[in-house]
């Protein structure tokens, strides 16, 4: 049962427009104006301490958890020292169509002044200087994006399983021991010394920040006349004295510790993608102990609800393009349930069930709820997960142990570590507390590369010769020749794509360390290096590959229509594409209808999809990233398929110029017409073991098809079959088209419809119209 206080908090979420909080921007500008010769690492740590000492704190009237990101409910902090684009975008933050934020009176002008002071001197400016002019051109054309340029690195899950056992003091002591053990100093050990000192400063600062909340709660309790509320406030005070410094004594304190830690990662830098790992596992001992001591399930359930609402009130300010590409302000905070234990047995427990029920009871856009499937999964728990999906929450996403564990073994983890995996980003597997992952390499766009290939290395829209000459396709006599040419183009662009990332990721080590996050990842304290300096035991970065469906469909259309059945020549095809099929709708229909499309379980075209996955991966994985990590691939788009579609002309699959591309690794919208089993077959035709960081499949079901017990059986069969055929990930939105269209017309009445965009859910009404339309055109799997 959702408590009244939680209900109130949730209603306020819908009622309050997000706004910009200037507090941090002011403080960072003020702090960095003060003269200092201190090394950058210590200076970052001290600024963070200064910020936590002075930022506004408050406790919501209904809350029993303390800690907020902004100085007000639903307010988004600004990082003027990090984001170079802010100078250009500041004017439209409150007027843009996607993820807009309101300003408090006068604060827009103030922000402009602040931003002007940082102009040309931000982190983003420095990373921009690393990008060669020819690379900037490739980005403009839409071949790839450059990730991590205006944002700190995130993509990890702290060692929460240890944190709830020890508290921060244990980690501070570890740093102190390291400092005490230091003997002679040289330039390397000085770097280590500064790192350990910075870590201590940061951890002490978070503890002191918690104590500020304890003081506030005590003060509020003194003034409170409602005895029940007074009791709650005193509990908050007590909890904030105990955690995060010490080991939590109960579930409430543990969840407070997790929240303070998560919040600290969000406050320190403008990161995203900080994950909770296997929440149902590390919290279980405290849950079991509390239940034994007579704490009610309802109380625990509502603590979980409150944490979910807290997560829904976290923000990262993005520029115009990214706001559209990452529609709905996702932060990819995965909270993982289910899966096998390190010993290979099923890990489902009563807390797993409770959290799954909490999704059905009160769905929220964050955190991202995920569920690990394996062959011996507890069926009752698995069906609870499916029920949550069916309830319209669009969560949890289902991940497959059968695929993820072997891929993690191939990344060098031990079997027990691999079995303990969790998620970051959209669908990327990591081992919590042991991995420094980067989900933000950028998007590589094979559809654009194909377009350039078809034009002998020239971008047909800008007429620039960006790639090498690989031949006039009008003279080609087979698809294989096109694929060979594609390979050469791809390898050419991949090199620029990855080496640019290497430069950018190196900047992070000297400008934008995540010191708090480094404290809780194995290897960093030991080596005296933060994550950005390569401190973690395991590190890798995933390059995202977009919209493989359009490449597969295009190659199949060329094979069938040009070379096999000879409906037209390559020269005629190129003319059609150049003119966007103008006056030749019949030929566009030919390409659409006479050639098979990915998503219908037809081997001819699915083989091309399989090829492109393999080819992209092969061209990428032999590079090493700038901090000595490996590269992996992930086949996902977020809603970038809408943005980048606007940069690509007509394609041989019959797609018009500038139209949306296919989302993620899903079939092209509307072109999968044989039902969900065929989609699942096509997607599992890809080799899911090859991209070590996953393949993202979105499916939308008509609620009418999966109603009742039989409906749940259908859902279960589809998901189980997908997992048995070694698919990595499937996520399902359950809502019909009429409802989505009604929500577009009357948003107020449909505030709580959650849809799956990519590796995250968003409230449908909060999305930009273009993204809404894209989701509506995704094929709805109906009753057959």
């Amino acid at each position, binding site marked *: 049962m959702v408590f009244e206080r939680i209900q109130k908090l949730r209603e306020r979420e819908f009622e309050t427009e997000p706004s910009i909080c200037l507090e941090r921007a002011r403080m960072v500008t003020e702090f960095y104006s003060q003269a200092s010769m201190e090394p950058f690492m210590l200076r970052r740590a001290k600024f963070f301490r200064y910020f936590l000492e002075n930022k506004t704190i408050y406790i919501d009237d209904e809350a029993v958890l303390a800690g907020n990101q902004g100085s007000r409910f639903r307010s988004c902090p600004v990082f003027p020292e990090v984001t170079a684009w802010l100078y250009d975008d500041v004017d439209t933050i409150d007027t843009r169509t996607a993820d807009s934020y309101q300003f408090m009176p006068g604060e827009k002008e103030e922000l402009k002044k602040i931003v002007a002071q940082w102009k040309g001197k931000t982190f983003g400016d420095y990373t921009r200087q690393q990008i060669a002019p020819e690379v900037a051109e490739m980005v403009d054309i839409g071949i790839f994006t450059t990730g991590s340029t205006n944002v700190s690195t995130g993509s990890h899950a702290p060692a929460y399983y240890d944190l709830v056992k020890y508290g921060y003091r244990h980690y501070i002591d570890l740093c102190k021991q390291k400092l005490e053990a230091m003997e002679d100093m040289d330039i390397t050990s000085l770097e280590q010394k500064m790192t350990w000192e910075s870590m201590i400063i940061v951890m002490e600062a978070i503890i002191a920040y918690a104590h500020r909340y304890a003081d506030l709660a005590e003060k509020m309790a003194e003034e409170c006349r409602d005895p029940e509320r007074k009791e709650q406030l005193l509990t908050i005070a007590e909890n904030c004295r105990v955690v995060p410094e010490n080991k939590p004594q109960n579930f409430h304190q543990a969840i407070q510790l997790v929240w303070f830690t998560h919040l600290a990662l969000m406050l320190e830098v403008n990161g995203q993608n900080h994950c909770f790992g296997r929440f149902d596992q590390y919290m279980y001992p405290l849950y079991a102990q509390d239940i034994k001591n007579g704490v009610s399930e309802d109380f625990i359930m509502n603590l979980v609800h409150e944490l979910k609402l807290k997560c829904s009130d976290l923000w990262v300010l993005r520029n115009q393009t990214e706001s559209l590409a990452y529609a709905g302000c996702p932060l990819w905070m995965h909270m993982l349930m289910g899966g096998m234990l390190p010993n290979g047995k099923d890990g489902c427990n009563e807390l797993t069930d409770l959290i799954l029920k909490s999704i059905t009871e009160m769905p929220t856009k964050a955190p991202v709820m995920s569920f690990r499937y394996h062959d011996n999964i507890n069926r009752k728990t698995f069906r609870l997960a499916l029920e949550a999906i069916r309830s319209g929450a669009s969560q949890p996403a289902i991940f497959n142990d059968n695929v993820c564990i072997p891929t993690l073994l191939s990344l060098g983890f031990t079997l027990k570590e691999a079995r303990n995996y969790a998620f970051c980003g959209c669908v990327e597997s990591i081992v919590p507390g042991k991995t420094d992952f980067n989900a933000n390499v950028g998007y590589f766009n094979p559809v654009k590369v194909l377009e350039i290939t078809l034009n002998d290395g020239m971008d047909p829209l800008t007429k620039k010769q960006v790639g090498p000459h690989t031949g006039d396709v009008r003279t080609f006599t087979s698809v294989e020749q096109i694929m060979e040419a594609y390979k050469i183009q791809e390898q050419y662009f991949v090199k620029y794509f990855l080496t640019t990332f290497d430069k950018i990721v190196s900047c992070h080590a000297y400008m934008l360390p995540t010191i708090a996050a480094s404290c809780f990842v194995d290897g960093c304290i030991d080596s005296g290096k933060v994550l950005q300096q390569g401190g973690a035991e395991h590190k890798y970065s995933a390059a995202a590959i977009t919209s493989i469906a359009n490449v597969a469909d295009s190659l199949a259309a060329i094979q069938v229509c040009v070379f096999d059945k000879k409906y037209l020549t390559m020269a005629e095809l190129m003319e059609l594409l150049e003119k966007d099929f103008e006056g030749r709708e*019949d030929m566009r*229909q030919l390409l659409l209808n*006479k050639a098979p499309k990915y998503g219908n379980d037809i081997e001819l075209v699915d083989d091309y999809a399989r090829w492109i996955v393999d080819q992209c991966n092969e061209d990428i994985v032999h590079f090493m990233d700038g901090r000595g990590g490996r590269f992996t691939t992930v086949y996902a788009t977020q809603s970038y398929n809408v943005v980048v579609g606007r940069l690509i002309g007509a394609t041989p699959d019959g797609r018009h110029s500038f139209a949306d591309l296919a989302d993620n690794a899903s079939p092209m919208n509307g072109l999968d017409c044989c039902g969900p*089993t065929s989609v699942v*077959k096509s997607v599992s035709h890809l080799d899911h073991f090859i991209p070590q960081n996953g393949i993202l499949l979105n499916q939308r079901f008509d609620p009418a098809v999966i109603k009742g017990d039989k409906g749940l059986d*259908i859902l279960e069969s*589809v998901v189980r079959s997908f997992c048995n055929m070694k698919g990595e990930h499937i996520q399902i939105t359950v809502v019909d088209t009429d409802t989505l269209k009604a929500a577009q017309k009357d948003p107020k009445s449909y505030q709580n419809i959650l849809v799956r965009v990519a590796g995250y859910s968003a409230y449908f009404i909060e999305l930009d119209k273009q993204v809404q339309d894209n989701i509506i055109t995704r094929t709805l799997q109906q009753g057959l």
Partner: protein
Amino acid sequence: MIFNIQKCSVHDGDGLRTLVFFKGCPLGCKWCANPESQSFQQEIMESSAKCIGCMRCVKECPEKAVVLTEAGPTIDRKSCVKCFHCTEICYAGAKYVTGKAYTVEELFEEIEKDRMFYSMSSGGVTFSGGEPLVQAEFLTRIAEKCHEEGIHVMLESCGYAEYEKFKTVLPFIDAMFMDLKHIDTEIHRRLTGRGNQLILDNIRKISEFGVPITIRTPIIPGYNDEKLNITGIAEFIKTIPNVREYELLAYHNLGESKYKALGRGYALHDVRPPSEEEMDSLVTAAEEVLKGSGKHCFYIK
């Protein structure tokens, strides 16, 4: 001859199933929702919604049988000689062929694609139509193949076929749906073109052979929805040992557009689907008859 293969079907048998529709039917029910299932030959269907107005069909038809009407280019079915040229040149798929000949191997390959889903859901294949039993030789071969390969086989039939010819298929059938539209043979003849004696005999024989049967009656208001018909069928069912369930199906008019697509008229313009109350009362009447027999009647909303 097959006119459709439909994956991931949930309404005709347990679990997730592939439905294989045989083309051609000895009955001619006025309400048939799949009029393309009636003829044993390939036919041309038309969809004006898909037409892009390129006019190639009008220009190229060797018989000049495609004429421009208000609804766009339309086949004059009297002049059409079914050369299928228009379907080949219609890239938009507005004119298309229904009906395709398969070899047993080709058909099995298509059925086997969803094997994983059958095993996960206790599903399988359902042969439907048209009337699969009148293509007994081919049906036996494909059913035998599926059975041998461990795929659950169901059959949906109107029951109008020669037992001696189709009995070869029965060893490979796990369960059947059999339609019974009316218990009165004369009314049955009026509605479907044939009397029901052969059908009743076949139901009895198939039951004796040992195949579990579900009897189905589509409820068509004004045609066969009298209570006496339903109770009459229920009385018959009581005498058949291997019939466990009696399912009533509510008439729907989703097939109407297909008549247009085939250039044919639709006789049931004015018929509306039966109300839930009407369906409930028919189910209750049948249940009354079946009480104590271990059989029951139901319908799915």
